[in-house]
């Protein structure tokens, strides 16, 4: 198969929107109590992130998001999911920094 080229503009858009995804995850977990609907929203957000991140080559993000999704589905305590989201935030920041770092 001839290589599929992902336009830089699409990749840039993903990284830009990644910051918004992370902020939304953080807001959702902060508001999480035992309301089922917020947990379901969190699970859906993590599900989406797991699917899209790896498609752009950010497999570490996919693994983290998938772990978070499974924990949400299993009813893991809030503190556990918060930990995963913190790791996602860090990985996302690293990905954005790597993009802006000038190549040597």
């Amino acid at each position, binding site marked *: *198969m001839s290589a*599929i*080229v*992902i*336009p*830089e*503009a*699409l990749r*840039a*858009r*993903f990284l830009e*929107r990644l910051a918004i995804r992370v902020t939304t995850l953080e807001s959702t977990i902060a508001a999480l109590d035992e309301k089922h609907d917020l947990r379901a929203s969190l699970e*859906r957000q993590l*599900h*989406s992130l*797991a*699917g*899209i*991140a*790896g*498609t*752009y080559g950010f*497999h570490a993000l*996919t693994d983290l998001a*998938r772990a978070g*999704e*499974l924990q949400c589905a299993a009813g893991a305590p809030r503190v556990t999911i918060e930990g995963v989201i913190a790791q996602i935030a860090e990985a996302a920041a690293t990905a954005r920094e790597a993009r802006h770092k000038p190549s040597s």
Partner: protein
Amino acid sequence: MNTRVFAEPTFAIVGGDHYFAACPSCDSVTDVTQSPWCSCVTRERTPVCSVCGECRCRRSAAERLDFWMRAPESMRRDHTPSAPAQKTAAKAPLVMVVDDDEEIRLIARHVVEQLGYRCVTAANGPEALAMMAAEEPRVVITDALMPKMDGRDLCRFVKRSSEAKVVLMTSVYTAPRYKYEAFKTYGADDYLAKPIDFASLQATLTRLVA
């Protein structure tokens, strides 16, 4: 005629299929659907402003992408193939991608078109079914877990009402028993794991469209 004009690069729809946009070079607002199309050798030909003659090909990739992302779906379908590919693009099989995540739709559409197919996208099951009333996709690739209508239910509807092949996508349930469930319970023709592996996508489309 009442005309609504929005700041560039948005589109205003004035009845029928007219789309007005402001030219980024001279600020003239013209009916893009009546514009000539540029002959630049780019993947996506753009309208030429009838006032200053500028086309958007000279804009940066990010600006052009933003223009097409905001363009109405019908305009993208009718006008985006570059001139050399237009004849084959018109006959290329149509693939529909259904996913509630806009970025999945964008990248999937990009990849499907790079593989030589035409592509339309929908954000959910009801939207996909409404589009299928006018379009006849050969293949529908749908996320399994979506709001409004689960992709698995969409699969059942599509298999009952059309000849289209259906591919279910999901990121978590990749165990063999879920693939079996996709085939036997919902009637899916194939199964794709997310994150999307482009080689698998190509192989799947080749197999289903053949």
